[in-house]
Each structure stands twice: as C-alpha cells, then as structure tokens.
C-alpha cells in the first residue's frame, strides 16, 4: 500500500524521536569513555578501554558471572527441561499446577525474592560455603516464566507422545527418550530459553548486590565510584557483546522467544 504524505511524515517524526532517545545515551557512553582523564591525557584517549583488561576485580567478576550463567544453564538443561517434558508426557494432570508454579515469579519482584531468600542464603554461606550455586538457584527460578514460555511453545509444536511411543517401542529407555529424542527436537526452544538466561544473569544486579555477591554488574557499579570512564567503557563493551551474541545465535525463531513475555 502506498503511504500518504501525512503518514510518512508522522512515521519519520516518531522514528527520529525514539531513535534519538535510545541512541544518544549510547553514543554519549562512547563519548564519555574516550574523554581525557588524569593529567597525562591530551585530547581523546582510549586509555579507559585499555584499562578494562587491567582490572582484576572485573575479570574475577566476569568469570564469576559466567560460571553462574553456566550453572543456570545446566539447571535448565538437566532439571527444568526434563521436568517440563516429563509433565507433558506422563502427568497431564499436573500441567496446570506446573504452569502456575512456573509463572509465579512474575508476581514476585526480584527485590521481594531477595527478602525471602536472604535468611537461607546467609545460612548456606555460613554453614556450607559461599558459592555461585545458591545464586544460580535463585536466578533459575527468576527466569522460570521465560524458560517455561519458550519450552511449552516448543513442546506444543511437536507431537512428543508419538515420538516417545515410537522410541519406547524400539527399545529406548526413558532417559534416552527425554535426552536423545525429545530434547533435540525442541532445540530451538531450549536455545531461546538459554539465551534469555545468559542475558539475565549477566545483567542482574538487584539480588547479587543485596546478597553482597560480587557479580559483573555489582563490580561495574563499584568501578563507577572510582573511575567513571572505565566503568562506562565496560558497560558499553558488555552491551556490544550482548548485541553480538544476539546476532551470532543463528535461530529463526529467536526473536519470537524474546518477544514471548505474554502470559495468561
């Protein structure tokens, strides 16, 4: 359909306004991170960017966050996905309660979860050890609604009952059915879920800050108090990294999963 002059004018006004809103702060980050700081600098400098690598706290925090993300992904792969498949296959009566449980975190803000988990976390840290596992446990629950949405969409799209029956008839064990047959068929859903998991873990601040666990975001905030330029450079770098991740994950439906915030 050909667009009238008025529509096009409106369209471009909206686009330029929103684009300015979203892009100017991002450009400002770049501008700020190349500003001279200290007495040695004259004019623009990339010193803040080169200093990223020499921040021991930061590198430790990045690896800590990545380990946490890996544990979250393992929990998704070996616990949440198999349970979702199991419920679909064997316990159709539990589907509704399972769905409700998975959507529960939507009603509970992260800050409230922290309030509830703080005593347990403190107890575990004192009596067992302070490890990313506890944090990963909380995160895997926080992202449950998103994981569930992309999983159940994928499970609904395939007739897993026929697959399971065929595999069992041919002699496959139940673990083979879940991990060898069904999981590969819903790969897209799992990849979607995992992508959201990584993005969320790397961007999480509320819980780790209050529980005093020095994750990526917490350390960026810390650096920001000492050296704004470096903190801004790190933030921009990590943003670019996430965009890069998004572009290299080669799934057609990826976009749909990130869109999948609707619940009902």
């Amino acid at each position, binding site marked *: 359909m050909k667009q009238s002059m008025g529509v096009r004018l409106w*369209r471009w006004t909206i686009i330029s306004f929103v684009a300015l809103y979203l892009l100017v702060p991002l450009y*400002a980050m770049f501008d700020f991170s190349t500003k001279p700081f200290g007495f040695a600098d004259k004019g623009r400098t990339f010193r803040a960017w080169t200093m990223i690598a020499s921040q021991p706290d930061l590198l430790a925090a990045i690896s800590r966050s990545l380990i946490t993300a890996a544990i979250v992904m393992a929990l998704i792969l070996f616990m949440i996905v198999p349970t979702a498949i199991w419920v679909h*296959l064997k316990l159709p009566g539990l589907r509704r309660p399972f769905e409700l449980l998975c959507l529960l975190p939507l009603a509970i803000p992260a800050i409230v979860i922290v309030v509830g988990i703080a005593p347990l976390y403190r107890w575990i840290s004192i009596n067992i050890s302070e490890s990313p596992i506890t944090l990963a446990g909380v995160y895997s629950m926080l992202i449950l609604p998103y994981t569930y949405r992309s999983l159940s969409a994928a499970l609904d799209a395939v007739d897993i009952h026929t697959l399971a029956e065929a595999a069992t008839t041919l002699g496959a064990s139940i673990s083979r059915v879940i991990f060898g047959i069904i999981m590969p068929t819903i790969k897209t859903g799992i990849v979607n879920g995992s992508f959201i998991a990584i993005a969320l873990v790397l961007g999480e601040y509320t819980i780790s800050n209050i529980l005093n666990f020095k994750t990526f975001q917490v350390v960026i905030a810390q650096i920001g108090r000492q050296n704004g330029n470096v903190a801004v450079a790190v*933030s921009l770098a990590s*943003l670019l990294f996430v965009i890069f991740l998004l572009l290299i994950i080669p799934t057609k439906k990826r976009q749909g999963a990130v869109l999948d915030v609707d*619940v009902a």
Partner: protein
Amino acid sequence: MGTGSANGRTGSRYWRSKSAYLGVLPFLLFSGLFLLYPTWNVVSGAVQDNNGKFSTTVLSEVFNSPVARHAFANSLELSARTAIVGALLGGLFAWAIATGKPGGVFYKVSVALSSVLAQFGGVMLTFAFLATFGFNGLVSSLAVKFLPNTFLADSTWLYGMTGLSILYTFFQIPLMVLVFLPTLENLKPQWREASDALGGKAYEYWLRVGIPILTPSFVGGALLLFVNSFSAYATANTLINLSDFLTPLEIATALTSETGGSNPAEAKSLSMFMVIVVIIVMSLYALLRRKVSKWEQKR
C-alpha cells in the same frame, strides 16, 4: 492459552502410574527451596514481628508510616508515568516499524535492538544517562556552552522523579515494542482494504477497526510496563542515594541497613504490599490477554 495439540490421549494410560510423580520430585524440591520458601517467608513474615510471633503490628505500622506511604506513592507515580509514556512512545514506534518493509533492515535492527535495550536497566543505564545529562556529560556540556540558562545545563534534575522517569522510559519503550509489535502485525491489510472499499476514511478505519482491536493489547502492554518499573530496583539504586524515595529502595534499606540495624519484618511487610499491587496488575493483564487471544491467532 497454552493448550497443546496432543493432550496426553494416546497411550497415556500405559505411561501413567503412581511412580511417575517421582519424576517431578527434584524440580519440586528445588523450586520449593528457591521459590516457594522465599515466597512463604515473605508472606508469613509480613504478619510476624522480628521475634517470629504472630502480629500485624509491623504491617499496620508500615501501612500508617508517612515515609512508607510517600515511597509507595512515588513508586506508583513513577510506574504509572513511565508505563503511559513508554506505552505511547513504544506503541507509536512499533507502528512505525510495522508500517515499514517487513523483514527489511530497519525492521530487523529495531527488533534486535529493542530486545537488547528492554533488558538494559540498572547500572549500565545509569552510566549511559550520567554520560549524557550528568555533570560533564555529552548533552549537559553542550548545554553549558550554548544554553547556559536552561535546565539541561544543571544536571540536578536527573537525580529525582524527572530523571528516574526518563531513565525508566528508556527501557520501557523497547519492551513495549516487543509486546505490541506482534499485535500490530496481526492487523490484516484486508481489513483496511475492506474499510476503504466501503468508503471509510482513514480516521474511520482507526476509530472503528484499528483502535478497538488494538486497545486490549495496548492496555495489556501498559500494565506489563507498570509492573516492570514498579519492581525495578537496580536503576534507582545506582542513580539516587535516597533510601526512602521508592519502595524497592526502602525494602533494601530495611533489609541491609548498616546503621540502624536491619529490620526484616519491615522489609517483609513492605514486600507484601508490593506483591499485592503486582498481583492485582498481573491479574488484570491475564484477563486482557485472554480477550486478545480470542481473536489473535497463534504465531
């Protein structure tokens, strides 16, 4: 929603047995520990004092405290503002995306960028806006040079309601794009053609067809944005140092306060009020979604 194609009809009798329930046990234990226990802890803790005795004193204390009320009102105001502005701008932007070439570069870039920026809250967002409007920031240093008497030259406005609203709207717009774009794409061009063919004007199409169809999904999106900013903590925490400004900040202070000693019962009571608001809004959202999914076919 969420009704599957296969509903466990074929061969389920063969599968079904009591021992099948053991399969969900690990997940149940895990979610019990990390999800149900914290939830229960907050709900039950809200009606206990700090010694674990049943009492509604803290709950009513919090309810009547002017500080808590002020923070709560601020939280509600901020969420309502950014939900409305975010929904309007995001909705319009989604419309601009939907009217472009489907699958074109602009479409792809906007959607990809939206899905990243919708998550771009917290520390990094604060830095981005400090680099823009903060002391020595990009816009403010330009303003000092060229518009020295405007509010842009003096960055104090950033550290209050106005600043927070502007920061929050930054992630609300892309979220609205993600939520609203699918509905816009479901508007069939045939409807417009039918309206045109019957002699309808553009405004008549929007008034009689477009807006009635889009309204439930638009309002639903706005409700989602409301919850999104109502629950947000990280951005506010890194931008302003006022512990009583918003309810999430107040909760964090009550929980971790290093000066006055922590007060978990207060944190739980405050949390309870937050959860009540979120549950009300999310139920409205669920009702609206049901209405939307009646006519919107699944993608």
